[in-house]
């Protein structure tokens, strides 16, 4: 069984925000919620790097550990999803997540916090696959259509990769061998441990 992961190759990301736009369009994400965003490291300093960040679907997800109502679950493919019918919008997951993935729409009187929203790896939620209810709450279920997340498929420079962790590691390894630099995989160690799926990705977190 494939173990779904994200990799962002900081050597290739050109900060075009195509992944952000594609995600918002595909999943019809509401105003104020960004499931994915591009972050620039050392902005303004020569050699600055950009990376695309969203939920990394961690192997040992801290959001799952701290949720008081256990609204999170992990699929057989390793995708961390949540049930908005169970979520109480407490925000604990937001404090626990090292990537700032959980988002809360500000809606209603006094800016009350709504149900948590985050990247679903384009895998929908607990509702029936491809149903209207699933789309309303979580967006498209591309995984059940045999497709990868739209952010990675839309990435023009293929900086953002999504799919089976072993295959992604092989792709990155080939790139690093070809160009001789840029083995750093930002967030990989934090999300999946130092050894990824039994293989050393050769990067630092």
């Amino acid at each position, binding site marked *: 069984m494939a173990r779904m992961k994200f990799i962002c190759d900081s050597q290739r990301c050109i900060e075009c925000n195509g992944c952000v736009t594609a995600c918002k369009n595909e999943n019809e994400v509401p105003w104020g919620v960004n499931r994915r965003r591009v972050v620039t490291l050392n902005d303004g300093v020569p050699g600055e790097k950009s990376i695309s960040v969203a939920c990394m679907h961690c192997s040992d997800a801290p959001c799952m550990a701290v949720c008081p109502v256990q*609204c999170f679950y992990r699929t057989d493919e390793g995708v961390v*999803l949540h049930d908005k019918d169970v979520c109480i919008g407490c925000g604990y997951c937001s404090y626990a997540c090292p990537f700032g993935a959980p988002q809360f729409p500000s809606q209603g009187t006094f800016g009350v916090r709504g149900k948590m929203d985050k990247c679903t790896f384009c895998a929908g939620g*607990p509702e029936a696959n491809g149903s209207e209810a699933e789309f309303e709450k979580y967006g498209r279920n591309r995984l*059940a*259509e045999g497709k*990868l997340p739209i952010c990675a498929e839309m990435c023009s420079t293929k900086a953002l990769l*999504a799919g*089976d962790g072993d295959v992604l590691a092989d*792709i990155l390894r080939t790139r690093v061998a070809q160009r001789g630099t840029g083995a750093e995989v930002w967030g990989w160690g934090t999300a999946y441990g130092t050894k990824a799926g039994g293989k050393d990705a050769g990067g630092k977190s």
Partner: protein
Amino acid sequence: MKKLVLVVFTAFLLGACGEKPQTSGGSNRDAPPYMGTGVAAFTVPGWKAGDKTGWELALRARTQHGQNEFNRGN
């Protein structure tokens, strides 16, 4: 009659002792993705809903041929 009223009243009182289960065991009632969406127009051709191996091959093909340009260019 008095006995019946007493029984009904007692049953009503004891009803308060009942409690709905409040434990939450997670929400994994999701169908696996290889079961498909049932919308043929958006589904990748080449595999049928429920075909796990076909689904895995479709995803692998998209990962390798869509994201690994070393497979295409070199």
